[in-house]
């Protein structure tokens, strides 16, 4: 292990978190929230010192990072970020217990957006801003951010980026990984600014606009109102928020095609096409089904409800606006399937990712074919390009592992004694980084029904889901810790 590099990168991340707290501190000061400001200062100063020491004390001889170290750094930084990001919650006394603060902070960075807080408008505004900002940082990846602004981190960054960006990473835009990271963040930043301006146009105040921009671009889905986006009672705002959630769930790599004005290529991207097809089909079906059941005032209203909930589930943002538990069963099941599926790869959405689902169907098809033609050699193709055998095997195992982890964590979580439906959906929602679920954690429900150990477990599950399982699970295997033996 190259501990020098590890400690240097950890130092950078800690500094970054400290700096990211500064805007929240300024807001606290501007609002005259004395206690909150003190809590931020008390968090920022030690972090600055710690980060500075870690950076200055080490002089890495080489910046090479192997797979082993890349994974370790990413897992370590995410756990650290969640733990250190919890400090303002603890110091301000809003969430005094460490486990609960860790849960809230992990829900932030992992863009899950689950909350234990009940009375949202009563929370200090600085803290609220910090919570949403942690979303935004976690959305595209803390380390990817670091790589994009500090290309000096260098050569080994590929393994970090691989471990942190979502999706199987079948392609990349540029050859240099830091350029790649920069490209992702430039687009992320541009969309964020655009959404912020559009929300301002909708007569939102800048503070609310920022909170909701952070929540939708990261597909985290936090709001500073108990009713969420329904608070504004404005179809315009609802639409803008849902629209940018969807934009954030499209593969950011695919935006490269748009950037170069290759419109046709963008829509020919199999994952993007499938994503929009699933989105439109689900909205249409649910809209019609709701109309038949008489939910919604008019046909347009039914369609609006369908649009908002579908986009809340498929993008894993969780910006739901109505109690979908009262909807027909088939609509709920579609929402649950969307929850598992999630958005595109290289986006801020959670879940299994569309591209993997596409490969799943190709694999099933190939299996059928091989049953009929046992000695045929068939490659798995996606959009005319062959998916390498290694990627196919990685994707297969990822999907299997997703369900193993889902069922396993349901089993562990069931020790808490909530009903089976709530337990199943809590595990699924956490793993897919979606804030809402079914049963007692459905619309308007909070996670305070779970006990402290269950909350800790859910926090781990959120990070596990955000880092797409491998990065965390690999640390749990004995062979990881015995590098010289096979």
């Amino acid at each position, binding site marked *: 292990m190259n501990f020098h590099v590890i400690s240097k990168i950890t130092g950078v991340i800690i500094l970054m978190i400290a700096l990211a707290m500064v805007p929240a501190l300024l807001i606290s000061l501007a609002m005259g929230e004395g206690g909150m400001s003190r809590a931020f200062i008390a968090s920022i100063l030690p972090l600055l010192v710690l980060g500075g020491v870690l950076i200055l004390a080490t002089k890495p001889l080489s910046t090479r990072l192997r*797979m*082993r170290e890349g994974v370790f750094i990413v897992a370590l930084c995410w756990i650290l970020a969640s733990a250190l990001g919890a400090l303002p919650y603890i110091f301000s006394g809003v969430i005094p217990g460490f486990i609960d603060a860790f849960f809230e902070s992990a829900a932030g960075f992992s863009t899950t957006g689950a909350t234990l807080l009940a009375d949202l408008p009563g929370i200090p505004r600085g803290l609220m801003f910090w919570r949403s900002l942690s979303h935004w940082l976690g959305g595209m990846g803390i380390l990817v951010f670091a790589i994009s602004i500090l290309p000096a981190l260098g050569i080994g960054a590929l393994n970090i980026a691989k471990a942190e960006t979502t999706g199987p990473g079948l392609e990349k835009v540029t050859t240099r990984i830091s350029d790649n990271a920069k490209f992702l963040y430039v687009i992320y930043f541009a969309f964020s600014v655009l959404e912020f301006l559009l929300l301002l146009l909708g007569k939102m105040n800048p503070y609310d606009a920022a909170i909701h921009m952070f929540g939708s671009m990261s597909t985290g889905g936090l709001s500073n109102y108990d009713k969420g986006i329904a608070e504004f009672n404005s179809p315009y705002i609802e639409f803008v928020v849902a629209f940018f959630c969807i934009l954030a769930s499209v593969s950011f790599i695919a935006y490269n095609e748009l950037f170069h004005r290759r419109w046709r290529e963008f829509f020919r991207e199999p994952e993007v096409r499938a994503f929009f097809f699933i989105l439109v089909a689900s909205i249409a079906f649910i809209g019609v089904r709701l109309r038949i059941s008489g939910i919604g005032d008019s046909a347009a209203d039914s369609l609006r409800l369908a649009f908002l909930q579908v986009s809340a589930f498929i993008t894993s943002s969780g910006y739901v606006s109505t109690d979908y538990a009262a909807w*027909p*069963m*088939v609509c*709920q*099941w*579609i929402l*649950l*399937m969307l929850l*598992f599926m999630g958005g595109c790869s290289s986006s801020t959405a959670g879940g299994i990712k569309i591209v993997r689902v596409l490969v*799943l*169907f190709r*694999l*099933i*098809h*190939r*299996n*059928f*074919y*091989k*049953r*009929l033609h*046992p*000695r045929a050699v068939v490659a798995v193709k996606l959009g005319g390009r062959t998916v390498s055998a290694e990627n196919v*095997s*990685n994707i*297969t*195992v990822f*999907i*299997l*592992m997703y*369900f*193993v982890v889902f*069922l396993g964590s*349901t*089993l562990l979580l*069931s*020790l*808490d*004694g*909530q*009903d*089976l*439906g709530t*337990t*199943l959906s809590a595990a699924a929602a956490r793993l897919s980084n979606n804030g809402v679920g*079914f049963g007692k954690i459905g619309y308007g429900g909070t996670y305070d029904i779970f006990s402290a150990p269950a909350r800790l477990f859910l926090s781990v599950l959120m990070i596990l889901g955000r880092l797409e399982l*491998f990065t965390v*699970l*690999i640390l749990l*295997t004995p*062979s*990881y810790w015995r*590098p010289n033996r*096979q």
Partner: protein
Amino acid sequence: MGINYLTVLRIAGFSAGITGIAILPSLAVSFLCAEYDAAARLAPCAAVLILAALLGFRFSAPGFSALLHPGAAHLHALREHAEPGPRAVILLSVLWWLFSSVFGAVPYLACGLFEHAADAFFESVSGFTTTGATLIGDVEALPRSLLLWRSTTGWLGGLEILFVAAVLIPFAAGAHPHPAHAETAAGLPERPFSKNSGSGRMLLAIYSALTLLLFLLLSPGMKPFDALIHSMGTISTGGFSNFNDGAAHFSGTSAAWILTVFMMLAALSSMQYFRMLSRRWGAFVQDAEMRYFLAMACVAAILLSLSLHFAPSAMRPARSAGSAFFEAAATLSTTGYSVADYDLWPTFCQATLFLLMFVGGCSASPAGGMKVFRIVILFKLIHRNISLRLHPNAVVPIKFDGKTPGADWVSAVAGHALLYIAVFFSGTLLLSLDGADMLSSLSGVAACMGNIGPGFAQVGPGDGYTVFSAGAKLLLSLLMIAGRLELTAAVMLLTPLYWSGRK
């Protein structure tokens, strides 16, 4: 080889004949128990089915059919020498279960047990696929002959799947036992049985002997008829009962423990029985699948017992340890008997049982589910993938039972698991159109695909599937057949791939 309507006719005739003959014991019971009303309805059923079979054979006989259809020469070849290709085996096995279920539903309809044909079909499919899901609310009110018929369908279905899994599918793989073939139903990569009919007769003997043994063991504690029904239900892993409270009738008696043991025995691979008979005890004891199966059952039973032990008294059944072992065995073996209403148990127990519903029994057994060896392979696959990420250049083959089954076979196992997930989700999507609550819908689909029987909530133990509409029952029936044939065969029939590009 090709399939033509004459093959189909022949299969239908064969199925009708077997069903007709299988009605005869129930007919005999109806006379013995003086149920003359039932007898008057069952006798024509048997007569018509046997007659239909004879007619079917007559018209599909090679000499006769050659006049009608030149392609019929293929048929002759099929019967005599040639080995059917994968397409034929797929279609024939699905058709076989469809025909059996349709003919098996005739006695229910003749006796006026159900108003709708879909209900009778569901009950019959549930029998022949050894699922044991039921639509009958009050079974104790049924004539004994009909109860026996219901259990006969289950028993026969268990025997048939043994034949298909052990004899027909490896036979279809033919002279080139390719792993991709062998995986589909028989499961294990090796070819356990030769294709001569000797092993088929052995299977029948083993299956009957187990049933008889269980019958003799149960007899001291209960009436002969009850013992018969429950031994048939246990050995076939179907799980039909003649009591309204099902196996809970025996709660606390030694019969519950006997059933627990025999449910596990029934879910063992028939290859293990062959090994026992040929006194290859070393191979028997070292069988990896059996070891994993027993280990899973024990761990699950112990977890259930612990959870029940510490549960509040309202949730705890009377004999919690016994119930825990019984439920673990009943779910894992996909029998679906139940000594207690686990819907009332702690959530941890429910989650454990829900997981077990996907596992199922061993390969080449009448049990359903994904099968133990596949679950083990999946975990090995996950483990291998993780270590490959650390050591990208390592070559790590997957091993099972001391053998290296090969990459194709492993990828077929993974493909099956993915298909299981896909069918589970889309099956629930279709079933949810019916509007039952989420837990009932998803556990109903899992229980039908896994050929288990009861699920949770509205389809929990003792509830039956009466909440669903006719269309939903039909869907569940198809899921049972698909699950029985390890999904691939049945789902493939729905794809254009199967019907196009015949080469």
